[in-house]
Structures are given as structure tokens and as C-alpha cells.
């Protein structure tokens, strides 16, 4: 039965990728750069949240500190292009490795903390990083780094007139991160992550080095988040601390994942699919009024989902599936009896 499920899921996964590959060929999308923008953001935010999901969802360590890693990746790319005038790729790699190191260094002491204490400690870390980057002269502090005009193409990962390559870039990012998580989910590491989430003491008693597991999950998560940060900069041609390294950015990671369903493979995608178009289109419709109507609606939706289904949209779907299953069983019962 498990086997069967896996196959079904595999099929769903391949279909999804093929559909996403074909999205730019839909004439409506191809003609509409804003729709492309929304699609890119969906993929990017789904990837970001999936990176967070590794540590926050599967491993249960709710970190509000991911914008630090996101920001380091972003600055890696930004510094390479703006300060050193080279292609962003070395910066991205160095940034991501650096993010990994920073993740391990800051989370090792923090893992001593439990629950809300951990969450608030990560808050504090974001605020500290944010304010330090705000005054760090070498990375231009509060001024931020603005991209100069550079040659377009994959070497610089910059395009000015089209968004399709960005779309495919985001798709590559998305597929990579989702595949990694999908692989993890079904293997030893994934089970260990969940064991640590559920009960650390039991996990230890079963021979799991929970500190190592948490640290490696954090490192992996930071590495992937950092890639997303680099993509974000390459897409927006600018990086400054409030944009990439603030509590608000961190909240996006958490929000998307939890809304979709933490600790599930498709949760982040579902969360992004709902949240991002909502955010973008409400802004388009009501943002111009300048009355905060869009953000009020956005907040209202978050409250609504949390109140009605605290486990997120995946929880909703699971509930629905279970409901159907039990109904099937119930309807099958009389036949057995008779």
C-alpha cells in the first residue's frame, strides 16, 4: 500500500514538473509579464519555504532567523556583481557556504533552547544581523548595493527584457530543492528529522545524535535558503538589509510553510500558490487606494486559515481524504454484514 502511494506521488510529481515546464508556452502567460512575475515569485517562495521546511517543518525547530541566510546569499551575489564586477556565481557559492557556516555557528548554542525561547532567540539574531549590515561599510550599509547595467545572459544571470529565463531559473531552483527534500523525506535522514521533532529524548535513546541531526538540517536549510536569496537579488537588481535580512522576510518563510502545511512535501508549494497570488493581486487591485485594504485582507486570510485549520492547507486536504476514506468504509460496511 505504501508502495502504491509512492508511485502515485511520483506520477503527480512528474506531471507537476512537466506542467510547470510548459507554463511559459501558455499564450496568456507568455504575453503577460506580471503573470510571469507571479509565477516566478510562487516558485521562489515555494523554494524558500521548502528550505525552511527542512528545519522548521520536518525537524520542528521553528527558526525566524532564515532571512539571515537568505540575506547572506543575497549579499554574496550582490557583492560579486557590484563590488567586484564579476559574474555572480562565485559570490553565490561563497555566500551559500558562508551561510552554512554562520548557520552552524549561531544555531549550535541556540539549540540548547526549546520552543518559544528558540524562536525568540532567532528573532534576536535577525535583528542583530540586520542592524550590523545596516552600518557595515564594506557592504554599503543602509545604502544597499545597486546593480549596474551588465551583459544579460546566464553568465551574469541577468535579463532585462524577458522574464522567461528567470522563470526557468526559478523552476530549476524549485525542482532541485523539492527533489532534495523529497529524497530526504523518504530516507534515513528524513525519518531522523521527524524523530527529533517528535521527541528528542526518545530519539537520543534510539541512537540518534539529535544535535548533529539538527545542525546538519540547519546547515542544509541555510545553504538552500541562501541560493534563494541570491536568486532574489539577481531578479531585483538590488540588495539592502531591510529587503533581504529582516524579520518581515523571515516571516514569509514561516508563513508560507505553515499555511501550506509544515513538514509536508507539498505544503510549501500549496502555501505559495495561495499566498503569493493573493498578495500580488490584492495589491494590484486595492494597493493603489493606499488604505492598506490589501494587507488587511491578507492578514484576515492568515487568521482565517489558522483558526479553521491550524495544520494548514495540507491538513485540510488530509482531513478531506480521510473523510472520504471513512465514508467509503462506512458505505462498504453493510455489504460485508449482509
Amino acid at each position, binding site marked *: 500500500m505504501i508502495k502504491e502511494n509512492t508511485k502515485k506521488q511520483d506520477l503527480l510529481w512528474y506531471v507537476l514538473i512537466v506542467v510547470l515546464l510548459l507554463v511559459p508556452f501558455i499564450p496568456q502567460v507568455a504575453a503577460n*509579464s506580471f503573470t510571469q512575475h507571479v509565477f516566478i515569485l510562487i516558485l521562489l517562495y515555494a523554494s524558500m519555504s521548502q528550505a525552511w521546511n527542512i528545519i522548521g517543518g520536518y525537524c520542528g525547530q521553528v527558526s525566524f532567523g532564515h532571512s539571515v541566510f537568505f540575506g547572506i546569499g543575497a549579499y554574496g551575489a550582490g557583492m560579486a556583481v557590484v563590488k567586484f564586477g564579476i559574474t555572480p556565481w562565485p559570490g553565490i557559492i561563497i555566500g551559500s557556504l558562508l551561510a552554512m557556516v554562520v548557520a552552524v555557528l549561531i544555531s549550535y548554542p541556540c539549540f540548547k533552547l526549546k520552543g518559544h525561547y528558540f524562536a525568540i532567540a532567532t528573532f534576536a539574531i535577525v535583528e542583530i544581523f540586520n542592524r550590523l549590515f545596516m552600518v557595515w561599510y564594506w557592504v554599503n550599509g543602509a545604502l544597499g548595493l545597486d546593480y549596474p547595467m551588465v551583459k544579460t545572459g546566464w553568465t551574469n544571470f541577468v535579463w532585462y527584457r524577458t522574464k522567461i529565463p528567470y522563470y526557468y531559473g526559478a523552476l530549476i531552483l524549485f525542482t532541485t530543492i523539492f527533489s532534495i527534500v523529497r529524497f530526504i523525506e523518504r530516507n534515513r535522514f528524513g525519518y531522523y528529522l521527524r524523530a527529533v521533532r517528535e521527541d528528542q529524548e526518545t530519539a537520543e535513546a534510539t541512537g540518534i545524535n539529535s544535535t548533529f541531526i539538527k545542525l546538519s538540517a540547519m546547515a542544509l536549510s541555510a545553504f538552500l535558503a541562501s541560493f534563494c536569496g541570491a536568486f532574489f537579488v539577481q531578479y531585483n537588481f538590488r540588495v539592502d538589509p531591510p*529587503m533581504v535580512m529582516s524579520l518581515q522576510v523571515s516571516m514569509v518563510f514561516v508563513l508560507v510553510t505553515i499555511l501550506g502545511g509544515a513538514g509536508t512535501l507539498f505544503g510549501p508549494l500549496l502555501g505559495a500558490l495561495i499566498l503569493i497570488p493573493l498578495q500580488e493581486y490584492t495589491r*494590484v487591485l486595492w494597493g493603489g487606494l*493606499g488604505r492598506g485594504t490589501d494587507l488587511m485582507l491578507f492578514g484576515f486570510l492568515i487568521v482565517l486559515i489558522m483558526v479553521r485549520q491550524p495544520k494548514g492547507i495540507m491538513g485540510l486536504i488530509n482531513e478531506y481524504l480521510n473523510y472520504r476514506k471513512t465514508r467509503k468504509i462506512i458505505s462498504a460496511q453493510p455489504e460485508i454484514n449482509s
Partner: protein
Amino acid sequence: MNFIKKISIIILTTLLVFTLVNGAAFAQEKIIKIGTLFPLTGSCALAGSRCKAAVETAVEVINNSHPECDVPLAAQEGLLGGYKIVLVHADHQGKPDIAKAEAERLFDQEGVYTIVGCYNSACTNPASMVAERQEKIFMCGCSSSAALTERGLQYFFRMAPTDKTESIEFCDVIEWMNGTKGANLKTIGIIYENTEFGKHAADEGKLAAAEAGFEVVVDVPFSPGATNMNSEVQTLKAKNPDVVFGACLGGDYTLWVRTMKQMDWLPKMCLNYCTGYQDPVITEQLGDDANYFMGGTGYAPEFAELMPAVAAVEKIYQEKIGVPFDSDSIQEAVATFILAQAIEKAGTLNYDTVRDTLYANEWNSPLSMGGKVAFVSGGQNAKAMSMITQLQGGEYKRVFPTELSTDEVIFPMIPWSKR
């Protein structure tokens, strides 16, 4: 179950509405769409909403016949023989990434001809790059970062004086005071919000001070939206500079002044970049405490005799938003007028022609101080100027340059205890 249905209905309606809005073509042919892009939510929402209203005012004057207004294009209706301007508003929330996305949407989806914006320099930068890449014109009213017009963009025009010119003017004032009044001002302190805007202003301030030979003894960046500014003011007080340059936005500005009052400290002279200081509600909020501060001002209601044409336009503006123009918002109106004038003069909507026309002429602009606008390469308005004013009895008195001044500077600032 029910909930799934509800959610999907919500989402579907949202999408549906969006597609409808997107698809709805304007029936009227003779329109020019112009996008506005300002921070309408978030910490700069106040300034953003004023700028938006200023653009609306300008468009109102251009589109309809307003013979009472003595500004170009007011008497006639529309442009190019009947073209009307239609505004599309967008909100960038003070975030550069959203500014870029919205600029793209305005150009690609809404099909606007040009964008007026974005107040925050950090947002103007990426948004104007979008325009530049598409070779479309971007009109910037009041973003003050000098770097914006040093990028060598072809299609970017900015009306307001930069913080660079303001800084130089500040130093001129100090020199003038030293020269004519024997003020003996030597040291400068800078207090600024640690954001793109504040940092730029402070950097330019330091450069200008160094060039003029003043010593910057203390440099206090602070995080905007602070709960208190005790340590900031204490730091200033400890170093006790003769002159303080301030770059603080509204809420922080009141907090700053109040804190100085509590600490019972004032510099001899206080010069502010055009922000919190020239907000029209500041005198209402701070009462007498607001007095004797000085700053660069591009426009204040007290300038009526210098700029007689503003009053009629300001009336329309005030109906919309309840306060008079301030020097930020009026620049956005100027931007709109200049663009309209250029289109009218060029006689076409071709971007290159309009751009060349913009560069080639000196524009008559009754809403700008000095009444003229002319652009130099990079898009800076070379005629942009501001005056140094001092708040006296709740009014912005012109004090420098001397040829336009009406009142004497009250120097040094009257200490709190003697008010």
C-alpha cells in the same frame, strides 16, 4: 469540506476579478495613462499619500479647464488637442523589490506611458531602471539621493534638489552666519535615520562639511521607528556641536525634538534636510517647540509671494488631503506638469522625442521655486533650488539666501528654558 469550498470560491473570485480588471480595455481612445508609484502603506505612507494626491491635483488641473490657476495647461482641457491623462496608482510599501515589480506591471500590464515616483530613493532606483531598460520615461519628483542622477540614465528626470546641493547650501549658511553675524560656528553634528535616505544625506553632509572646512564631531544614525531617542540625544549633547544637521522623518522628528526638550539641550543652530522639518503638520504637533529650527525648504505656504501661482493649485490639493503642499509633494506635481508640458510641446508621445524636448528646453514651472526647470545630462533639474527657512511662531520664514529672504535669523536658537 465547506471550508475548502469557501476558500476556493475566494481564490477563484479574486483571480476572476483580476482577469476582468486586466482584460477591461478602456473604451475611450484619447487617453494617456500615467502610473504613480508611492509608498502608500508602511512607515512612509504619510509622505506617499501626499505625493499621490499631488500628482492627482496636477492631473486634475491639466485635464480640466482651470482658468483660476496660473499654470501652464490649466486653461485648456487635456493635452495634444483633447488627450486626457488617466492615473493608475500603485503602492510599493517602501520595498525596492515591490517597487520594481510594480513598475514592471505598470508598464507592461497597465500600459502606462510613464511613471511618476517613488519618494524613497531606494525604490526609485530599481523602478527607474525598469523604465530605462524599456526606454521609457521616468519622472521623479522628490527622491533626494544625489546618486540617482549620477547613473547616467537617459530617460530619468528628477525635479527636486539633491541632498548634495542641500548640504552645500547648509554649509553656505553657516559660512554666511560666521561672516556676517560673527556666529563662530565650527563643529557639526549629524543625526539621521539609518536608511538609504538618511545615510545618503549624512554622507553628502559630511562631504560638504569637509570641503567647507567644518569639523563633523558626531555622527548619530538611529533606527527609524525607535521607541525613544534618549541615547541619540545624549550622544549629541555630550559632544555639543555648534550646528546639527538632521535627517529624520515625521514621527522620529517629533520624538527627537521632544527628547531634546526633555534633555534641555539645543545646538546653536539646527539645519534639517527636507523631511520631518517641513511637514505641514509639524507646527500643529509640536506647537512652540517646533520654533527656531531651520531647514531646506522647496515650498511652504509662506512662500506665496514668491510663487503666486501655487495658491489656486494648492486649494485643489488641500481639498483632497487636508494639508497644504510640502516641498516633497509639490515636486511630484511639478514632475507631472513638466511631463505634460513636454508632451504638449513635442506634439507626440514618442519617447525619444519627448525626452529630447525635455532636455532641449527650459520649462516654465510656477510651482517650482525660481519658476524654471531645466535638465542636465543624467536628468537632474539644474534649476532646482531650495531656500533655508526658519520656523518662527509656527511659520516658515525665509532667511537665506539673502536676496530672497524676508526675515532675520534668530540666532542662536532660544534655549528651552527661556521660551
